C-alpha cells in the first residue's frame, strides 16, 4: 500500500500540469456550416424549414395541423399575433412589471441593466453580452439577478420572479429583430465555445444537443419531435403549458436531463455560451413575448 502511494505521488507531481491542460476525451456530432455571422435564415441551408416559420403572421395551417409535418413550423404558430390566446405568460408580464417597479423606484435598477435614461426599448437586444463588472458573458436574467441583489432583493436566476422581470423588460423589444454580433471578441470566442458545447456528446446516452436538434431533427422520439435550433430565442422566456414560467437556461436543464445528461447550474458559463450560440442562430427573428410553448 505504502509503495503504491509513493509511486502515485511521484507520478502525479510532474504529470499534473500536463494532465490539467489536456481536455478530456469526448465524442462530437459533426458540425454543419454555421459561417462566421449566423442568422435565422441560414436554416434554409440545413433543415430548410425557415420558409415555414420565418413570418408568424403567415403560418400555413395545413402544415401546422399536419401530424407528420407540424415540426416544420418550429412552433411559431403559438406566438402572437398568430395566436393571441391568454396564458400564464401574461400573468408573468404583470408580475414582472410589479417587481420591476418596486426595484426601480429610484431609477437605478434600469440603469444597472444598461437602460439609457430608463428607456427599456431595445435593451433585450443587447443581451447576452460580455460584462466587465461580472467578468464574463451574461444573459439578461443573470444581470437581473445581480442588479436586484444590489437593491437588496434576491431574484435567483431561473426563479419565477427573475424570469417575470425578464419577460417584462423583454416585452419593450417586441417586434425588434435579434442582432447580436459574434464576429468580434470576446463574443466570437463565446460563440465558438457554445457551438462546440452544442455538438459535444455527454451523459449515459452519449447525446449532444445536436444529436436531437441536428441529426434527429424532424424524427419522432416517441411522441416528441425535435425542431431546428435556428430561430428559437425570440420568444424566450416562455410560458410552458405544463404550467411553468421558464427561462432559457431552465429549458437547457430540462433538455439535458431528458437526454440523460447531468444538468448544470442555471447561469453557468457553459449555459451562457450555449445561449450566445443559439441567440446568434436567431439573429433576424423578432422578439415575441409573452409566448407559450408545449
Amino acid at each position, binding site marked *: 500500500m505504502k509503495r503504491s502511494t509513493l509511486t502515485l505521488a511521484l507520478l502525479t507531481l510532474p504529470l499534473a500540469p500536463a494532465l490539467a491542460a489536456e481536455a*478530456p476525451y469526448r465524442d462530437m456530432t459533426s458540425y454543419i456550416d454555421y459561417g462566421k455571422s449566423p442568422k435565422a435564415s441560414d436554416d434554409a441551408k440545413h433543415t430548410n424549414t425557415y420558409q415555414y416559420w420565418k413570418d408568424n403572421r403567415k403560418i400555413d395551417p395545413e402544415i401546422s395541423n399536419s401530424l407528420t409535418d407540424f415540426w416544420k413550423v418550429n412552433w411559431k404558430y403559438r406566438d402572437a399575433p398568430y395566436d393571441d390566446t391568454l396564458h400564464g405568460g401574461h400573468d408573468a408580464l404583470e408580475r414582472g412589471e410589479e417587481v420591476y417597479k418596486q426595484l426601480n423606484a429610484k431609477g437605478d435598477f434600469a440603469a444597472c441593466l444598461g437602460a439609457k435614461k430608463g428607456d427599456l426599448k431595445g435593451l433585450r437586444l443587447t443581451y447576452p453580452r460580455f460584462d466587465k463588472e461580472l467578468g464574463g458573458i451574461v444573459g439578461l436574467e443573470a444581470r437581473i439577478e445581480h442588479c436586484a441583489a444590489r437593491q437588496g432583493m434576491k431574484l435567483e436566476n431561473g426563479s419565477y420572479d427573475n424570469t417575470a422581470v425578464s419577460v417584462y423588460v423583454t416585452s419593450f423589444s417586441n417586434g425588434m429583430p435579434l442582432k447580436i454580433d459574434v464576429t468580434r471578441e470576446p463574443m466570437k470566442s463565446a460563440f465558438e465555445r457554445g457551438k462546440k458545447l452544442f455538438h459535444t456528446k455527454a451523459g449515459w446516452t452519449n447525446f449532444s444537443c445536436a444529436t436531437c436538434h441536428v441529426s434527429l431533427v424532424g424524427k419522432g422520439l416517441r411522441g416528441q419531435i425535435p425542431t431546428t435550433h435556428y430561430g428559437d430565442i425570440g420568444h424566450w422566456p416562455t410560458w410552458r403549458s405544463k404550467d411553468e414560467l421558464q427561462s432559457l437556461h431552465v429549458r437547457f436543464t430540462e433538455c439535458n436531463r431528458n437526454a440523460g445528461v447531468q444538468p448544470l447550474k442555471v447561469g453557468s458559463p457553459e449555459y451562457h455560451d450555449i445561449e450566445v450560440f443559439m441567440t446568434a442562430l436567431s439573429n433576424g427573428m423578432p422578439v415575441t413575448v409573452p409566448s407559450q410553448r408545449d
Partner: protein
Amino acid sequence: MKHTLLALAVMGLAGSQAARAADSLPPNILYDAAREKKTIWPLPVRNSGELKYNEHRQDLSRWPTLSYQDKRDTKRPEKVELQGPLNGNAENGKKIAMNTQRGNCWACHVLPGDPQGGTGGPPLINVGTWGYSDAHLYQQIWDRRVANPATEMPPYGSNGVLSDQDIRDVVAYLQTLK
C-alpha cells in the same frame, strides 16, 4: 480496518491532485449529495425569487457532463466478443427494450406492439430475419461506435447502462422479431 483507513487517508492526500483532475464531480452541476438520486433540477415557484429543486428519477452524475471543469473522459469505443452461448431471456429483453429508463430502444426504433415507436433509427420489427449473428447484435448494443463512429445510438455496454446479461436478453428478444 484502522489500517486501511489510515492508508486511504495518506493516499487521499498524495493522490488528491490526480483524483481531482480525473474522478471528482465538477462543482457547477445540479447535484445534492443528501438526496437519494443526487441529480436535481430547478423548478420555478410562482411569485417567488427562489427556485425549488426536485430530485431527478436517476443519478446522472456518474457520466461526463458539459461542465468545463469536468475532466472525466468519455468511455472510448469498446470492441467486445460474446462469450459462450447466448443464454438470453427474450421476455426480459423485451421489457428492457421497452423501458424508457433502461434500454429505451423504442425512442428511436419501431418495435412490434408499440404504435409510438421512434423514427431515428431503422424499424426493428423483423430484425430477427436480417441474418445477424448474436455476436453482431451484442456488439451493436454494447457499443455501436465500433461499426459507426458517428452513430446516434447510446453505447449501452461501455457506458455501464446495461449489463452483459441485460444485453444477452435484448439480443434474444431481437432474434424473436420475425
